[in-house]
């Protein structure tokens, strides 16, 4: 087990290093860049050259990359030029991360709470009209672009009916104490219930929009997996033994069907990140996804690099955790 984890961690380091190199070279080969973003209409070749020289952008790429690595070793990932100018890019990431964690966790929770029971329900009645309807419904969820779902939710719930806030993370004027950066948790920890409630209200719509991605997958996997398990010999045996339905469901069907579902949930992380770029943009929600979109648009290379690398690291770590969890649940894997 330990060897397995270590090997995976080593692999991860190699992947991230290679990725950072590719990213570095690629970003700098693009036209435009931070210099254009800073100078605007005032740009002349002379000013451009001066700024490039000051920022070290005129040096050959390998030299720039070497300097970058040297700084990274000292924990300095470069300075943001547009997302949060003057701030260390890693700090930008850490400021934004709690927002996205909050959003992703809530979205995943929503997807699980709705997806698993619905999938189970559909599987129990496989082939019925209810089943077909829910399946088609989940496919509609796939066919509607996430940003459009977000638009609709915002348009109706926030703008037309004024039920929930339009954008952001917390209403201006709420005097909240920041502890972890997870606004809802902060509010609970400091017992500032109004702040927690307000932050939660800001989360609902983006989380709903984002939840459509994992929901469709979780629903389908649960359904398929429950269908498989229902067909397994041990369930039939249990039925034949005359065990009560409740026991069969909880002890045999659900537990065994959950294994693939669990994997799926872990693997949704990547999809959630991609969805977060779109959702957070629509809701001007200050998370990592919005920072990613902004840094792309404004050519904030330092932030962009950190965000993409961090996304890769998080993604790999989550997969690793899922693998470990999987190994713990399924002893067959442990022995291999």
């Amino acid at each position, binding site marked *: 087990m330990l060897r397995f984890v270590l090997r995976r961690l080593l692999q991860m380091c190699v992947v991230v290093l290679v990725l950072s190199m590719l990213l570095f070279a690629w970003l700098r080969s693009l*036209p435009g860049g931070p210099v254009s973003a800073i100078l605007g209409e005032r740009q002349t070749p002379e000013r451009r050259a001066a700024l490039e020289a000051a920022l070290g952008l005129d040096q050959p790429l390998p030299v720039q990359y070497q300097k970058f690595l040297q700084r990274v070793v000292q924990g300095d990932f470069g*300075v943001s030029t547009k997302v949060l100018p003057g701030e260390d890019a890693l700090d930008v990431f850490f400021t934004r991360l709690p927002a996205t964690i909050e959003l992703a966790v809530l979205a995943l929770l929503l997807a699980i709470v709705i997806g698993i029971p619905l999938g189970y329900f559909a599987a129990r009645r496989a082939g019925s009209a209810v089943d077909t309807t829910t399946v088609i419904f989940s496919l509609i969820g796939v066919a509607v672009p996430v940003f459009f779902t977000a638009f609709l939710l915002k348009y109706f719930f926030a703008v037309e009916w004024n039920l929930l806030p339009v*954008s952001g993370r917390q209403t201006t004027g709420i*005097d909240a104490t920041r502890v972890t950066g997870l606004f809802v948790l902060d509010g609970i920890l400091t017992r500032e219930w109004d702040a927690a409630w307000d932050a939660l209200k800001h989360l609902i719509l983006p989380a709903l929009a984002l939840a459509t991605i994992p929901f469709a997958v979780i629903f389908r996997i649960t359904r398929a997996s429950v269908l498989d398990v229902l067909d397994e010999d041990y369930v039939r045996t249990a039925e034949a033994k005359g065990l009560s339905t409740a026991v069969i469901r909880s002890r045999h069907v659900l537990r065994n069907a959950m294994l693939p579902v669990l994997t799926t949930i872990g693997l949704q992380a990547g999809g959630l990140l991609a969805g977060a770029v779109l959702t957070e943009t629509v809701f001007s929600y200050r998370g990592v996804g919005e920072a990613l979109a902004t840094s792309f648009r404004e050519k904030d290379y330092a932030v962009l690099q950190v965000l993409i690398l961090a996304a890769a690291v998080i993604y790999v770590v989550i997969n690793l955790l899922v693998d470990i969890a999987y190994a713990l649940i399924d002893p067959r894997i442990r022995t291999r």
Partner: protein
Amino acid sequence: MSPKRTLATWTTALLAVATLASCADSERDGGDGEGGGSEDAGTFIFGAAGAPEMFDPYYATDGETFRITRQMFEGLLGIEPGSAEVVPELATEWTPNEEGTEWTFTLRDDVTFHDGEPFNAEAVCANFERMFDQNEAGQVAAEYWGYVMGAYANDPENSLYQGCEATDEFEVVITISGPTSGFPTMLTLESLSMQSPKALEEGDANGIAAEGEGFSFPAYADAPVGTGPFTFGEFDEANGEITLERNDDYWGDTAKVSEIVFRVIPDESTRRQELEAGSINGYDLPNPVDWAGLEEDGNSVEVRDPFNILYLGLNPEANPKLKDLKVRQALYHALNREQLVQTQLPEGAAVATQFMPDTVSGYNTSLEPYAYDPDEAKRLLAEAGAEGMTLEFAYPTEVTRPYMPDPEKIYEALRTDLEAVGINVKVVTASWNGGYLDNVSGEPGKYDAYILGWTGDYDSAHNFIGTFFGNLKDNDFGTDVMPWGKQLADDLKAADAIVDEAERGAAFEEINRQIMEEYLPGLPISHSPPALVVGPGVEGVIPSPLTAEEFDTVTVGGE
């Protein structure tokens, strides 16, 4: 804050009469809103499009930053609210010597900085010396100083600024290398505001460093100290909010609101929705399409006088056919600018007859706009032997500017007109930061034609046409390959150095005539009024053509 607050929150939760959000507000305002029910009196919340760079206006370059620092800082000279006119601010009067090289400023004697330091002649000179004496990174970062003054302490020969001398406690003399129309008007620039010398010193204000692809700013940039009606509160990065508090010891009329909050909302349609939801009190540059709807909903759209120019730039270096005046005139006649202005630009926009708006001295009122005449365009093209010429015509994406609310739409209109007279337009595009500006201002520029514009920094003809054509070698119009390019640059320099205002105005008028009738280096399209919008109950916003609104006169009423 925590224990007291928690108790208070519990109490309010128990009472549970008003909504939770308003409770928090009334508490924080220390009584302002108490008993008033759900009103937000005392706080003006403004939706900003982006995060500020930092809070030291000297190094700042973008409007989002200036909008915030403008509330905290003042310059020697100010701008009359609602116009571009120069008025006294921290200096009450100023007089030049005969050559226009030594300027004596009389200062206000009743001003203190937010940190209690006195504002006097020494403080002024300390500020100028600080701005003049920059390290390598600072010289590049301080764009506006570089732009108006040309150089720094390590290269005094090329600097417009030559020195500052405190001749009395409240009198300074600033020496410049030669007369220019830009001085002292440039002292209205937000970047050249007065800051507390003590705070500058303590916060190591000049300790800027280039690091990787960006600048890292010293501690001072996060704790600025000025003389203005508001003082710096805090920047809540996680929630994207900047809070400024009222300066109760302000030398003039104290601000009407006790607090301004700038909330960062990058998406434009979201800003509008937030305004409608009542969670912000205003935002800048509403989409012209939304103006009518916003007004209907009880908001007021404050339209500024246009102080900008949109033009179609031509680059004879990239396409030699454009060297022919007839071709350039043909292109101009082909454009139906009247229709463009009416159908694509907001109300109050106007067809341009020259490269500057009419409020700037030096504007030539006798110039007539080139008429829309496709037949004449075709005739001129035929005459020049350029029928069916190919034109690589570019526009930027991912940007809106006050002079072009929607570049793509303006481009489409122009392109259709050009194609109608038989020009073969090759559509090129790049994102604003992603190569467009590089390609336009490269040497040589890459596009045959492009759309671009300019918003004036201050009331000066040289700030417009001088920027466009004054630098012969590096300009976007490739005038260095035209026979008249050098003449134009020299004329501009000469006109700029005229001390007498009337004489100078006349010289610029003549240059404007030549530019439009004899040279036509590019095609001025339009002036477009940028607006800002405030919600119901907000009064006292005075729209400024320079987009330099000060919010100390703003009041926020209840719903």
